[in-house]
């Protein structure tokens, strides 16, 4: 698709409608405003050429568009580039400002004003500012900025109507005076003040669109803007000393290892209890067993059987063992949906409370060892929800090197929520030792892979620089809404792929290809992994969807050690079709193919080693397991040591050159 420059390419925007754009820093409550403005009719669509989701909806005759939260507009990362293009194309910007963080938030406000776009400022979270002893002179702020400013408390619906009424009186505010002559010189060449500003600020993408060299005034303009914002804040803000609240104390505890690790452990344990035990057990037992397997499937089989005999080819494809109407629907609705909803619920809680960046700070030191910084924990955690989605969010990492490491680790070692659900269920039946073996093997593989990559990949990873928003009690309605939207989008994407997978397997089954492949893989499955030959079906299914593969193992009669070896193999095994497609889209063909191939090798290699070690250690239950765990830990420790020495050698070689 040709990229029409500047204007946004979102669907369903009627000609002549004004584009009202919501803009603001992260965590200022933009989404709450968006919901109040649009009500039920919201379109969530991918921004052209990207997989970032942008919501837009109707507001009377006009269209209102949400943007990703950013601290300023430029091209520092993908989210910013998208926010930049949408904001530059706006007819009116509704700028949501966090009253507690005026100094930070007004930088974006002033930048939008400097871009010459009409603005209304929603001064949000006024209640929180008051609680913290901040008094803001709203009228003076409006005078100084030169745009309407409306105090709001969006979550309590305060000030929403005022904002709606003020949209008509939005106007271009008081820009930084010194900028005027600089912009005028460029204006006739680029046609819009906003684009001219970004060219001056050295934005390479915008400059490239106009065939211009990016300017070198970014720092000069940024400093002037910072000075002006600080000056405004000095005039409008009065602070009376507020004591440190419990929130700030808890926020501090979360980032200190001594208290932070126990807090994280409790949070993860709660997550495990809810998702791994309650949802994967009780809820799925109801949805999958009772509703789908006992009620739904027989009903569908009976209905289809009236027209198409069950044993025919078409009958097998529709309602057979891997049937499109039976297994696909049962897995997606009965098994996947509850797990995915549970996972996104927790993720939204972490996100809305401000806990996520604090986890990043806590684990930063550990992640620098595997070539990531603390920020890398976000895609890794997201990976436990859905590897495909997490692969996309690696875009928030700063360097290509970090993205490469994160994507490989995601594809190799992180099981997605659906797969985890199945795995947790199977491990629970085996007891603690086997579960510990599984977890430790996967964890050591992650550590070893990351450490080695960090040593051999050229270049250096970036350092952590992250904003810690105040801790807040998440709003339940917001969390639920987020959970709903994300789960729906996930299922919408998963369903067709799942159906495709089921179709392929059914066709293989009917044509005899399945048996052929089982025999072909037999040396690997039977000879090397010591599993029954039918296990190959699970792996073939695993190519389509990982949880599919794990689920395929549940029906097999396996000894505990066989189960663990099979689960380790299927976890390390290639990511699902959806992830592969994204992988090829996000990375070069060569790199994607390499990642795909290496996960085959790693999966069978590690799975086989575990199975062989179990045999070699006499196979006597707990003691054998302990020895395997010690072996893997030892190998990991040796690798870390070797990589440290190698890095030190490299650094010294560098210095002596």
């Amino acid at each position, binding site marked *: 698709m040709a990229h029409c420059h500047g204007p946004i390419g979102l669907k369903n925007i009627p000609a002549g409608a004004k584009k009202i754009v919501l803009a603001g820093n992260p965590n200022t409550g933009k989404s709450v405003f968006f919901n109040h403005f649009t009500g039920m009719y919201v379109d969530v669509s991918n921004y052209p050429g990207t997989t970032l989701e942008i919501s837009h909806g109707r507001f009377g005759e006009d269209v209102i568009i949400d943007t990703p939260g950013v601290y300023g507009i430029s091209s*520092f990362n993908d989210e910013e580039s998208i926010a930049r293009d949408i904001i530059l194309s706006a007819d009116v910007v509704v700028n949501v400002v966090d009253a507690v963080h005026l100094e930070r938030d007004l930088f974006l406000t002033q930048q939008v004003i400097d871009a010459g776009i009409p603005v209304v400022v929603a001064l949000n979270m006024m209640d929180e500012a008051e609680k913290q002893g901040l008094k803001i002179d709203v009228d003076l702020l409006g005078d100084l900025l030169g745009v309407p400013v409306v105090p709001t408390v969006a979550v309590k619906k305060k000030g929403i109507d005022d904002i709606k009424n003020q949209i008509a009186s939005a106007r271009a505010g008081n820009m930084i005076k010194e900028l005027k002559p600089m912009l005028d010189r460029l204006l006739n060449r680029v046609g819009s003040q906003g684009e001219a500003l970004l060219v001056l600020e050295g934005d390479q993408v915008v400059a490239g669109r106009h065939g211009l060299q990016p300017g070198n005034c970014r*720092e000069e303009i940024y400093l002037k*803007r910072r000075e002006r914002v600080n000056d405004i804040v000095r005039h409008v803000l009065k602070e009376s000393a507020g004591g440190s609240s419990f929130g700030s104390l808890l926020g501090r505890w979360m980032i*200190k290892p001594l208290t932070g690790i126990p807090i994280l452990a409790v949070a993860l344990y709660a997550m495990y209890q809810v998702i791994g035990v309650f949802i994967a057990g009780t809820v799925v037992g109801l949805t999958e067993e009772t509703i789908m397997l006992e009620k739904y499937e027989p009903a569908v089989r009976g209905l289809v059987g009236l027209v198409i005999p069950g044993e025919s080819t078409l009958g097998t494809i529709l309602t057979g063992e891997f049937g499109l109407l039976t297994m696909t629907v049962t897995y997606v609705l009965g098994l996947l949906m509850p797990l995915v909803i549970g996972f996104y619920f927790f993720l939204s809680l972490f996100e809305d409370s401000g806990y996520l960046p604090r986890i990043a700070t*806590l684990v930063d030191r550990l992640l*620098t060892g595997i070539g990531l910084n603390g920020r890398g924990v976000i895609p890794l955690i997201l990976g436990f929800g859905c590897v495909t989605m997490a692969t996309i969010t690696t875009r928030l990492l700063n360097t290509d090197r970090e993205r490469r490491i994160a994507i490989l680790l995601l594809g190799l070692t992180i099981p997605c929520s659906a797969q985890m659900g199945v795995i947790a269920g199977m491990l629970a039946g085996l007891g603690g030792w086997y579960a510990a073996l599984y977890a430790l093997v996967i964890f050591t593989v992650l550590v070893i892979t990351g450490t080695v990559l960090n040593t051999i990949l050229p270049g250096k990873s970036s*350092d*952590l620089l992250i*904003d810690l928003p105040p801790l807040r009690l998440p709003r339940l309605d917001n969390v639920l809404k987020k959970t709903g939207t994300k789960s729906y989008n996930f299922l919408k994407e998963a369903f067709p792929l799942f159906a495709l997978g089921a179709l392929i397997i059914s066709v293989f089954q009917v044509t005899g290809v399945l048996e052929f492949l089982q025999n072909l893989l037999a040396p690997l499955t039977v000879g090397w992994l010591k599993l029954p030959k039918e296990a190959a079906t699970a792996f073939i299914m695993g190519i389509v969807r990982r949880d599919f593969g794990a689920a395929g193992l549940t029906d097999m009669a396996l000894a505990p050690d066989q189960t663990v070896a099979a689960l380790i193999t299927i976890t390390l095994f290639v990511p699902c079709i959806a992830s592969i497609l994204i992988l090829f889209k996000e990375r070069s063909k060569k790199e994607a193919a390499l990642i795909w191939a290496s996960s085959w090798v790693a999966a069978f290699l590690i799975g086989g080693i575990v199975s062989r070690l179990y045999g070699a250690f006499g196979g006597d239950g707990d003691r054998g397991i302990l020895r395997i765990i010690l072996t893997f830990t030892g190998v990991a420790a040796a690798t870390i040591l070797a990589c440290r020495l190698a890095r030190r050698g490299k650094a010294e070689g560098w210095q002596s050159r």
Partner: protein
Amino acid sequence: MTLDRVKRGQFIKITAIPDDMVRAQAIRFGIAVGEVVSCEEVVPAGPIVICKNKQQLALGRGLARQIGVAPA
């Protein structure tokens, strides 16, 4: 002195940020060269958390090592 040597509770003035991108990002957060900030927390061997007004920012150890500061 560099930022990684700072102790919790200390007030410091930022004197140098060598990296262009980090400097630009820092200006957006309101933490430009010359600003006085407080050290909110030092994670052992990990990031330094600095605070200005109500704004908290965590900086990785490697980054803190490059940032010049002076006691304020």
